[in-house]
Every structure is written in structure tokens, then in C-alpha cells.
């Protein structure tokens, strides 16, 4: 009996335990169901997104960069001068995070490096450093054949992708190198600054010149294609994402023909050429030598070429028209003349006698020479400007004093940037008494004054600023900001999105007498003086030359910089006028080195009909 009851009790106990076990089982299954609800409903959209991102590979479709034309662009014409355009090509890319492990990555990268002829060691180092989910460009601008051979061996090139990537083409290579600048991969510093403006880490960005200045117009908006991929990144399908929006086109104020003539005329001289229409500020020619071919350096794989250009001691990347300043030399006599006449301390027909020497009285008399010590005889102001007589301007400078000259140099903005639409412009420099005291701990000497008067010594200006100086005279005291772009056009060129209007930079009230005297002096320089070489041209030119005493670091024999500044037509309407500035570094005496370049540009302008209204 007791056995049965014991058995019964134990059976009861067993029942209780099984029920308990069953309840716990049920509880655990309910917890599982709750977790399923959590994963599939509460966090459902998160996991759906992650599942999508597993199979989606957003391949950017680069926007086509805007084209760039010269000033004679005509939408009807088929012979427009296209300075920059694009050519379809491919990039080979990869994403380091997609590889299963380092070993697989190294293997495949090595294989693809051999195929593409790039340095696999360098590439692996780059992949190690980068954010593993960023796409890395292995090689830019590869041929379709290479793409085909990668696509047809997916098993050998797992995780290696290709994408459309138009290549920038600069059709005239070095001729427009400093104007156009070039594009290159955005570097981490630039990316940090610009990512808020929609730039992506894999994009190309304008690095210099127009490409940089107008990047926002040129770049357009990248589109994308969604590739549906499996775990090995093999393509399962494609979905169209956003369409790329091409960049806008630019019509420059530059004239291809003139630029080309100037480029040819400069040969292998160092220096720069600038031509501006004073009535609008439009730049017709902007050239700097030595140059470079931007086509060679836009590719990521051209870093060697880029580095060697950057370390070249002739500084080919330097845009000498806006980034170099030189003593203005005799071209400064224009400012001294303006100061003397505007301050009414001098009359144009008042004369000085040039004996070839000027004696500066002092504790110890010092003698200053005219060019080669030759006498110019008795000169009025027109003659003095035309013959570029130093002795005349020593006397004049001494008479009117430094303050007046310095003031006019500043009124004419010789110490400011011109605001040209290119990055990296520097300003010229105009000294002052306070500056000299602060810098040298010395007062202003008379010797400083007479050096100032003829543009030697402390003053320095950029070629583009000299353009503005002469523009002020030609355009009756109003100077418009020099600019390179006339129009921003839509991708199909049908609509003008933005027209760059002339913008006044500064205005200086100049009397008609001052303008007439200075321009006549410059005209005299062509008819009788240092620029006589231009006298034969059918349109009257007025010009001034200048020679900067300097010491060469590159060449040993030629130790003078040569300036030429001229405008045409003399006596014509300001609307038609063009100012040309030529600077040749380390030439021999202004006239010899710089004048022929000016001559070539003016001659071409005449034959192209720039001054037809005047010629009639």
C-alpha cells in the first residue's frame, strides 16, 4: 500500500515537473516570437535597408564636365574652337571592404595590377590607408579592351569593377594651360572643406585656372546606377538610379587665334602676355611661359609627371600674368606723368634738357645716367615718354615729390589685385615712407624718389595690373574688372544661364589733357621711339616699353626683364581699344625681347578686323 502511494506521490511530482517544463518551454517560445516581432516589424525597415544595401552597389555615373569655347562661339557654327571637352573612357575601381581577407585582396590586386600596368605595392598601401568602404580607383582612362578582359574573367578579378569615366581633353594642350588650369582627384583636405557642397570623395575637381574658378558650373551632378550584386560582388542585374546632369559650358572672352599667335611669338621665352578690352574688361589673351600640357596630368596615374612639374625650378605652374610681380620700370613713367599733370605741378609742354646724365645733389653728388648715357636734348613730356628719357623723369620726380607719385600709383590700384576670375592672383606693391622706415629703419631719400619716378626700386606690379593702368588711360579713367568668361551656357548651349557683365573695378577722374598727353607720348614711342618696330601697322598703335634691371638665377647672360605695353587704335574709340601687355623675363633690353610679341598680337588683331571701325 505504501509502495503504491509512494509511487502515486512520485507520479504526482513527475507530473508537476513536466507541467513546469512545458510552461518554461512555452515561455521560451513566446520570447522567441517576441524577438521575431522585434526583428521583423519593429526593426523591420532597418533590416530591410541593410538587406538592400547588401545587394546594391551604387556605381556613380560621372556627369560630363562642361565644355569650354573661345569668344567666337556660335551655336550655329560647326567650327567652334573647343578649348576643353571630354572623351568617353573607363575607370577600373574596387572597394577594399568587399574582399574576404587580406590574402585574397593582395592576390587579386596583384593580378589586376599586372593587367593594368600599375604598381601593386603602392595600390595595396593606398587600400590599407583608405576607409575600406570607399571605392578606390585602380586605374583611370583604360581602354574598352581591358574592361572586356576583366568582365570576361570575373572569377579572376572578383570585386574589381569598371565604370564610365569621361576623360577631360584640353584640345590645344599647353596654349591654354594657365587659363584652363587642370582637374585632378579631390584630395582629403579639399574634400573636408567641400563635402557640404555636394562633392564626393571619388570626384575630380578643378585644381587651377578656369577649371577651379568655375568648378561649380562645370562639374554638373553625378548620377548613379544600382548594380544588384551577390555576396561575391558578381552582377545579378542593374537598376537605373539618378541620371547624371552634365555641367554647364563656358564661353570665354579669350580669342583662340590671338592666344595662338601670342603663344607662337613667345617661343620658349619665359614671361607672359595679356590682352584686355578696356571697355568691358574682357581678356583676349592670357598666356604664361613656361607652360605645361594639362592633358598629361589629369589622370590619377600621372602623379609622377605632376610632381616633376611642381618641382621644376622654372615653375611652369606659375601663372606669370597674375602670380608674378616685377618692377614696372619705364612703364611707370605713365604714372609719374599722370601725377605731375593731375596735381597741376607740371605742364605737358614744359621741358627739361637731357644731357645723358642727371646729378643728384647731396652730401656727395651722385650721377644717374640716361639709357647708355646718350643725350635726348630738350624734351617736352610727350617726347620724354616716347623716348623714355630717364633724366626728364628724374627731374620731374624730384620736382613733384614722392607723395604725389605714390598716391597716384595707389589711386590706380597698383597695390591691389585686379580681381580677375582666376585663382591665386597676387597684388603688386607700392612703397611708402612709413613702409621704408618700418622695413629698413631708414628715411625716404631723394635717390628713392628718382628711382620711384622711373619705376625702378621698391615698386612691383603684375602684368595684369599694368593692363589695368593703361586701360584707365584708354577708357577715360574707368577700369572694368578683367575677366575670362563671357557666358555660362546650358549643356546643349541653347540657353545662356549667366552672362558675365562688365563690372567696374575703380574709377579715377583724369583730365582730357592728361589722357591726351600720355597717349600721345606712347604714340610717339611708336612713331619715333622705343617701339618704332610697330609703326608700319595699318592701325595706329601707342606703346611703352620698359627694362627691368635684374640678376638672373637661371640664365647667365641676359639679366633684364622686358616690358611692353601698348594699345590700339590710337585716337580711335575706347569701345574698340585693346591693351596688350608683354613681359619677357631675362630678355635683353625691352624693345628687343618684348616688342615683337606685342607686334605679332597687334598685327593679328588688325588682320582679324578688330579695329575695322577705326580703319574706315
Amino acid at each position, binding site marked *: 500500500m505504501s509502495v503504491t502511494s509512494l509511487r502515486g506521490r*512520485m507520479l504526482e*511530482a*513527475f*507530473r508537476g*515537473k*513536466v507541467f513546469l*517544463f*512545458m510552461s518554461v*518551454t*512555452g515561455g*521560451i*517560445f513566446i*520570447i*522567441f*516570437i517576441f*524577438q*521575431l*516581432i522585434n*526583428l*521583423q*516589424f519593429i*526593426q*523591420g525597415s*532597418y*533590416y*530591410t535597408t*541593410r*538587406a*538592400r544595401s*547588401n*545587394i546594391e552597389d551604387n556605381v556613380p555615373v560621372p556627369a560630363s564636365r562642361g565644355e569650354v569655347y573661345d569668344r567666337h562661339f556660335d551655336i550655329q557654327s560647326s567650327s567652334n574652337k573647343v578649348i576643353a571637352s571630354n572623351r568617353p573612357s573607363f575607370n577600373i575601381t574596387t572597394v577594399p571592404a568587399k574582399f574576404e581577407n587580406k590574402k585574397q585582396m593582395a592576390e587579386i590586386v596583384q593580378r589586376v595590377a599586372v593587367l593594368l600596368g600599375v604598381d601593386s605595392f603602392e595600390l595595396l598601401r593606398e587600400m590599407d590607408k583608405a576607409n575600406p568602404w570607399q571605392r578606390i580607383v585602380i586605374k583611370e582612362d583604360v581602354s574598352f579592351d581591358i574592361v572586356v578582359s576583366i568582365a570576361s574573367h570575373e572569377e579572376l578579378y572578383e570585386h574589381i569593377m569598371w565604370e564610365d569615366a569621361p576623360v577631360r581633353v584640353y584640345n590645344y594642350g599647353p596654349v591654354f594651360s594657365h587659363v584652363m588650369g587642370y582637374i585632378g582627384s579631390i584630395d582629403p583636405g579639399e574634400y573636408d572643406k567641400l563635402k557640404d557642397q555636394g562633392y564626393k570623395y571619388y570626384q575630380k575637381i578643378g585644381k587651377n585656372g578656369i577649371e577651379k574658378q568655375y568648378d561649380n558650373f562645370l562639374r554638373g551632378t553625378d548620377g548613379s546606377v544600382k548594380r*544588384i*550584386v*551577390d*555576396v*561575391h560582388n*558578381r552582377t*545579378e542585374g542593374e537598376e537605373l538610379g539618378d541620371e547624371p546632369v552634365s555641367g554647364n559650358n563656358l564661353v570665354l572672352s579669350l580669342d583662340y587665334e590671338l592666344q595662338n599667335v601670342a603663344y607662337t611669338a613667345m617661343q620658349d621665352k619665359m614671361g607672359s602676355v595679356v590682352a584686355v578690352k578696356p571697355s568691358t574688361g574682357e581678356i583676349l589673351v592670357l598666356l604664361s611661359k613656361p607652360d605645361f600640357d594639362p592633358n598629361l596630368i589629369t589622370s590619377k596615374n600621372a602623379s609622377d609627371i605632376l610632381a616633376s612639374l611642381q618641382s621644376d625650378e622654372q615653375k611652369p605652374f606659375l601663372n606669370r600674368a597674375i602670380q608674378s610681380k616685377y618692377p614696372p620700370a619705364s612703364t611707370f613713367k605713365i604714372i609719374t606723368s599722370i601725377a605731375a599733370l593731375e596735381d597741376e605741378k607740371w605742364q605737358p609742354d614744359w621741358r627739361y634738357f637731357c644731357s645723358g646724365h642727371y646729378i643728384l645733389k647731396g652730401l656727395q653728388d651722385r650721377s644717374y645716367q640716361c639709357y647708355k648715357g646718350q643725350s635726348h636734348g630738350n624734351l617736352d613730356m610727350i617726347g620724354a615718354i616716347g623716348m623714355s628719357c630717364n633724366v626728364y623723369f628724374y627731374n620731374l620726380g624730384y620736382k613733384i615729390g614722392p607723395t604725389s607719385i605714390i598716391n597716384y600709383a595707389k589711386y590706380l590700384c597698383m597695390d591691389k589685385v585686379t580681381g580677375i576670375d582666376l585663382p591665386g592672383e597676387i597684388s603688386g606693391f607700392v612703397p611708402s615712407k612709413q613702409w621704408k622706415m618700418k622695413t629698413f629703419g631708414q628715411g625716404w631719400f631723394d635717390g628713392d624718389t628718382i628711382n620711384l619716378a622711373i619705376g625702378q626700386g621698391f615698386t612691383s606690379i603684375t602684368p595684369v595690373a599694368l593692363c589695368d593702368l593703361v586701360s584707365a588711360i584708354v577708357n577715360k579713367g574707368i577700369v572694368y574688372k578683367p575677366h575670362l568668361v563671357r557666358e555660362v551656357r546650358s549643356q546643349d548651349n541653347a540657353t545662356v544661364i549667366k552672362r558675365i557683365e562688365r563690372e567696374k573695378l575703380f574709377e579715377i577722374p583724369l583730365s582730357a589733357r592728361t589722357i591726351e598727353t600720355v597717349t600721345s607720348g606712347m604714340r610717339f614711342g611708336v612713331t619715333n621711339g622705343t617701339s618704332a618696330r610697330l609703326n608700319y601697322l595699318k592701325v595706329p598703335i601707342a606703346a611703352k616699353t620698359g627694362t627691368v634691371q635684374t640678376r638672373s638665377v637661371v640664365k647667365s647672360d641676359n639679366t633684364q626683364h622686358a616690358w611692353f605695353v601698348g594699345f590700339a587704335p590710337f585716337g580711335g574709340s575706347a569701345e574698340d581699344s585693346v591693351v596688350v601687355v608683354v613681359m619677357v623675363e631675362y630678355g635683353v633690353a625691352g624693345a628687343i625681347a618684348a616688342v615683337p610679341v606685342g607686334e605679332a598680337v597687334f598685327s593679328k588683331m588688325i588682320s582679324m578686323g578688330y579695329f575695322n571701325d577705326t580703319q574706315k
Partner: protein
Amino acid sequence: MIRRSDLAKFDLWLIVFVVILSLIGIFTIYSAGFDAVTKINNGMYKKQIISFVIGLVLMFGIMVINFRIIEQNCFYIYIGLLFIVILTSFLAPSIRGTRAWIDFGFFSIQPSEFMKIAAIVMLAKYLELRERDIQNFRELFVPAIITLVPVFFIMLQPDFGTAMIFIPVLFVMLFAAGADITHLVSVASIALIALLIPTYITHHEWLHAETYNPVISFFQKGSGVFILIAVLIFISAVFFAFRFIFAKKSYRRIYIPATVLSIGLVLAVILQRSLRDYQKNRILVYLNPDLDPKGAGYNVIQAKIAIGSGGFFGKGYLSGTQTQYGFLPEKTSDFVFPVIAEEWGFFGALVVILLMFGIIYQGLKIALEAKDKFSSLLAFGLSSLFLFHAIINVGMVIGLTPVTGIPLCFVSYGGTNLIMCMIAVGILLSIKMSKSS
């Protein structure tokens, strides 16, 4: 042999659940078997169908033959299987680092799967024989040996997942057989202390290495912990002696916790100080798969993505992106549940869970209705075997329990596991039929 009246006791529901779940498994294995690129099926589902058919034959065979044959020969079955498992552990070819398979050319068998049933039968038999003495702590020794010997050799293979499943089954069978709860809790506590302290320290060192934590500094620095252990051992020794000197059972309340704590601490200290850095990393990833999203954590992360993106009705059969494009690993075996949850959504996952619960429920009902202790314990043990497979497998793929390679019964690809499960169901059916004979 089976009699006409027995047919009334035929557990139709259990058979229906098992067949439906197995068919779901076969269809899922078919779906998960496509290559992402070639779109060619790897044909695993065919092998699973063959295993299913063999399983059905064995299931009904055992139901008809009567499980008593197994009961009578349980010792020989156990010893024979153990011998095969040991041989396998040492002699079998290593497949993916594990010596668990005997290869017969066109099919291979994993003896450790059958060992699960053999051990449960042995445990049920022993616990029935020792029913009256099971409260005695010494009686726990033999069940422990029955379980831990195969566990040891399976660990050698090494097949951690398979080995692990024996332990909770042993515990709940001891519990059901009437073992002293104090004993079970004590043993479990020792294991918990020994495992949790090193885990906690590792986790803390990783999370806030700089901040001062009195518990950890007590454990890591100085001799504090050793003094504590010594004091605990002293206390337990004294009170253990008192218990016999004064014959007062109530001293158990003092010396048992003291002993449990001291042993647990000793093991914890040994474990903590012998952990290498890579082992610590494993523990961390074990607890938090997101720490190693490309390595150990990858599987669970992809499984959760598959499940979570399934929504209510799923992406459709053969249309799960995680499954079909190869992001989900081990999708036919351990990670088969996410395939269902992705392609059939919450609905499909719920059906599987409910079917699994139904099988366990039917098994436990059979355990309650069985006429003798052995049958009850056997039915209970087999049901718990299904349960622990389900808890560990589903818990892992939904991110609630650590990653351990264990299949989901009836659903996962794997002939031996499926056949083992069907045999277990055959035994259950047989128990139900023979209850009043």
C-alpha cells in the same frame, strides 16, 4: 507486435507535425540550394528526401517493433555507439576541421547524433532503476558518467555544438527523475560562477578598461580572492563535520553554499588566469557579434538581416535576397530558419515555431501518459532533446543566444540528424501505443 486496438492510440498529430516540418525543411533546402550565379541547384534537397524516406521507414519500424527492444539492449547499444564515436573521433577523416563523419562513399553518417538517443535511453533506464535513491548525491555520479563520457569524446572531434546538447538534457532528466533540487542547483551554480566571472571580467576590461572596479581588482590583484576561498573551504569543512557529529541535516544550508562558492571561485580563477587574448576575443564576439562583423559575427548579423527583412509574408519562395545572393552563410544547415523567415516572413517563422512546439507538446503528453517510469523519462528526455535543439538553434539565429553549431530538428539539412529525430519520434509513437498493453 502491434495489435488492432493499438491503432486507436496512434499519435496522428505528432506524425502530421513531423511530416509537415520535414517537408518545410526539404522545400527550404531546395530554395537555399541555388547558386547565386549559375542558378543551378546543388541537389542537397534530394539527399534530404532520401533521408526523410529512410527516417519514415525507421520511425514506423520502431513504432511497430516496439521500443522495448531498445530498452532491453540499451546497454549494448550505448557501449557499441560509444565505441564507434570514439573511433570516429580519432580515425575519421577531418572534414572542415572536425572528425565527426564516417564516410560510406555515397552517404556519410555522424554517429554522435545517434549517441544522443543512446545516452537518453541509458539515463532513463538508470534513473528508473535508482528511482528511490536518486535524492542521494552519490547517485548523480553514474548519470554524469553516462553523459560526460560521450561528451568528452565528441569534444575531441571537436564538435562543440553536438557535445553541448547532452548537458541540459542530463539536467532536466535528473530533475524530472526526482533528483534533489539542491544538488542540481549547486552543480549549475558552480558552472555559472566558473563561467560568468571570467566573462564579466573580460567584458569589463574591454568596455571600460580605465575605470576602477572593486570586484575586478579584488579578483585580479593581491591575494584577497585566495583568502576568501580558503575561508569558504574552512567553513564548509567545519560544518560538513558538524553535520555528521551532531547528525543535524540543517547544516547543509551552510556548507553547501560555501562549498559551491569555493569550488566555483577556484574554477573561475583558474579559467580567468589561463585565458589567452584570442580566447578573450572569442568570448567578446560570442557575446556581441557586431564586434567582428566580417568574422565570427558575420553569420548572425546576416541571419538577423535575413529575418528582419522578411516582414510579415516574406519576400516569396525562392526570392530571398539574403538567401539567393549568398549573403546568408550555412543556409541549408544551421541557418535554415532565417531562410524561412526571409522568404515566408513572420508567418512562416511562426508556423515552424508552432510545429516545433506541437512536437514537443505531444512528446511531453506521451511522457505524462506513459505507464512506467522508464517510458516517461525516455519520452521526456527525447522531447527535451528537441526543445534544446530548437532553443539553441533559433535563439542563435535571432540573436538571443551565442553562436553554436546546432541544427534545427527536422528542418536543417543533415541526414543523420533527421533520421535520429525520426527514430526518436518512432520511440515516442511506440511508447504511446504500448502504454496499456
